[in-house]
């Protein structure tokens, strides 16, 4: 049984049929990526899994438990955390306060250690721990959003385009961090535009097109797949 099983979900925005029967699986310990063009429905898929949107039909299970009716805040307690698209940091709070807010769902006393771990992962954040998050650079905000999601000690981390708007050198850094986080035992479902990078860190991938999964394979095979090469990797 896979850790996360998404089974034929249909999600609507009013009358707009955004997800037309998505099914996917993420096994424990994996990095799985979801790639697709703008407007394909990647964010919608993540938001549906994380409980911010409710699917009209279809089921989502986490370790065998049906979570399709659960709201986002309940899922946090079940070990699902999300790094939202466009960073979504608390812009008026400081870096440190953002991290503390990330640990909102926890009551143990390992929070201090985890903050230190976050600083270790992103030394930039340590330098700027007292700075108001809204004044961080785009890349720093992305680091903060990732670090904050980790503060919940998630078993499954949903990441929505962590490389968006970052300079190439920072993109490499972010993907390195993703690999590191995964090695520490966090399962990751990664949504990306940067298909090349995403496929290089993932073990498997799905290709989404206008609300439907059109391809699913191991990352290696997808990289070689002519359709993917043409549409997402820019190789003719």
């Amino acid at each position, binding site marked *: 049984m896979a850790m996360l099983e998404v089974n034929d979900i249909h999600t609507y925005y009013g009358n707009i049929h955004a997800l037309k029967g998505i099914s996917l699986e993420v096994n424990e310990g994996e990095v799985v990526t979801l790639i697709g063009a703008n407007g394909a429905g990647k964010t919608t898929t993540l938001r549906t899994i994380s409980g*911010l949107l409710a699917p009209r039909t279809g089921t989502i299970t986490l370790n065998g438990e049906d979570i399709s009716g659960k709201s*986002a*805040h309940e899922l946090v307690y079940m070990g699902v955390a999300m790094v939202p698209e466009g960073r979504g940091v*608390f*812009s*008026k709070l400081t870096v440190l306060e953002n991290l503390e807010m990330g640990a909102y769902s926890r009551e143990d006393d390992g929070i201090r250690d985890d903050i230190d771990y976050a600083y270790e992962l992103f030394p930039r954040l340590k330098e700027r721990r007292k700075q108001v998050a809204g004044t961080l650079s785009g890349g720093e905000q992305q*680091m903060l959003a990732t670090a904050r999601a980790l503060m919940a000690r998630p078993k499954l981390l949903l990441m929505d385009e962590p490389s968006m708007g970052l300079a190439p050198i*920072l993109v490499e850094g972010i993907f*390195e961090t993703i690999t590191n986080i995964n090695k520490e035992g966090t399962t990751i479902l990664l949504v990306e535009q940067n298909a090349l990078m995403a496929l290089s860190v993932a073990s498997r991938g799905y290709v989404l097109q206008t609300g439907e999964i059109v391809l699913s394979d191991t990352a290696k095979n997808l990289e070689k797949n002519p359709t993917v090469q043409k549409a997402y990797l820019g190789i003719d």
Partner: protein
Amino acid sequence: MGNINWRTILRLGLLGSVVALYFSMIGMVEDFSNRNLIGDLLNLGHVLLYAGIAGGALFAAREHSESNTVGRGLIGLATGALGALLPSGLVLLSSAINMRTVFVNVNPALSNIITFGRGVPTGLLLFVLASAVVGLITALFTVLPETWRGPVGKSFGIVIISAVFSDLVRQVLTNIIGSGMVRSLYVGDAYRPLVAAVLFVGLIALFFWLDRRAKQSNETTAIPQTDAKARQAKNRRNIALFLGWGVFLLIAPWILGSFLSQVLFEIGRFVLLGLGLNIVVGYAGLLDLGYVAFFAFGAYTMGILTTTTAINPAPGVFTFWTALPIVVLVGVVFGLLLGFPVLRMRGDYLAIVTLGFGEIIRILALSDWLAPIMGGAQGILKIPNPVFFGLELNSPELMYYLVLAGSLLAAFISIRLRDSRLGRQWMAMREDEDVAEAMGINLVQTKLLAFAIGAGFSALGGAIFAARLSTIFPHSFNLLISINALSLIIVGGLGSIPGVIVGAIALVGLPELLREFQEYRLLMYGILLIVMMLLRPEGFIPAEVFKRELHSDEDTGGPPAVEAQV
């Protein structure tokens, strides 16, 4: 002499003139001229008339910071004289044609005030001269050395403000030095000119001395104190301050007398309302314009349960104290009831819906349909005063203590909530609902609690209000109360508890004290709100988080950017 920029002088002079014309034409100058400040030399009407003119001269002189004394004096003279232009024109025009049919306030009385009662040619010349002199003095003020400017400015401000609030000042003085002495200081409501002059000079000397002393002690303590010592000193100062305020709050009604106790009561009532609304708007970020509804629920529940008229379903069962828990409960329940339908709404939509809710409640209270329960347009009469261990709280002085106790309780609860887990939930929700939810925060619960707790405070305020007035009418619960409460927390500083208190004093207390202002209360509100939003949008005493938002470009903190590294 530096360059004189005539365009600046023209612009600022005319701007001051427009302000003077405006206050004249809306009738404020005339209305306020009955209020003498210093003998019959200076009245409040003069202050309004010349305030704009002086302001123009002040800014004109500031813009010419490189000019010398003579230069700036000339600039002041010119700007001031220019400021007289529009009011003079008004006087001339109104002496030629009758303008009263359109502008009711442009009448001979106004002309008299402007021309010192001397009529058109002489009086007008005097007015232009006076404006020029006012401009000159203001401009020369900017030439004063730094060490003098502070004391002179503050002293002038205190003399004028204490004259404006002479009711309050005389009341306090009478209780301290006796009415005989006070009478010798005042003529009517105004300072005797000599008294004002002595006070002015004395205050300058005092401030001068205080500044000197502060500077000296700064120099002697230039050696950094140890942290612990500094903290100890600060603690001691805080405790002293705290005790001082405590004692003042306890004895206030007895030094201030009955009228001012009533004013304090009003302030306290709005502090209570403001603290509740502060939770909803300031902490949770939910813009609620129907807040008066909960105040009405509180007042009506208290009224219905304790009145001695036939409306009471259980006559004689409830006293103020036994009804109070029920009142708060009713407030909380209705807070939840309003909360449910608006759970999915944000910002503007929420404001509109709550606005409608507030009006619906008032109209229901007014309706014949509910008249058997709520008294309809007649309201509810004969609500008894609370009795506290045999002491009937039937005077403003005694009721003040009740509202003080309520406010202190509300402030205490507010502080505890702010620092609690719930406080952090509110803060996160205010910042970003989706992200807050993704952090594991239950938005439904968080929102409903904000509405419910805010409503509980408001209902408590309503109950005290009903017991104080003994009679309540539907029209006591109009939109203006919601607007007042909202304005005062914005002026004070969203999310800040001291801010609520300062806001209530500024927006509720001061207008009560200035009888003449009553008619122009909303105008004053408008001016104050605009000025605040321009100069200090975060409020008088802002909460830390809001200050950050508005000044995040200034205090970014942290070291300068270093090499990119992840």
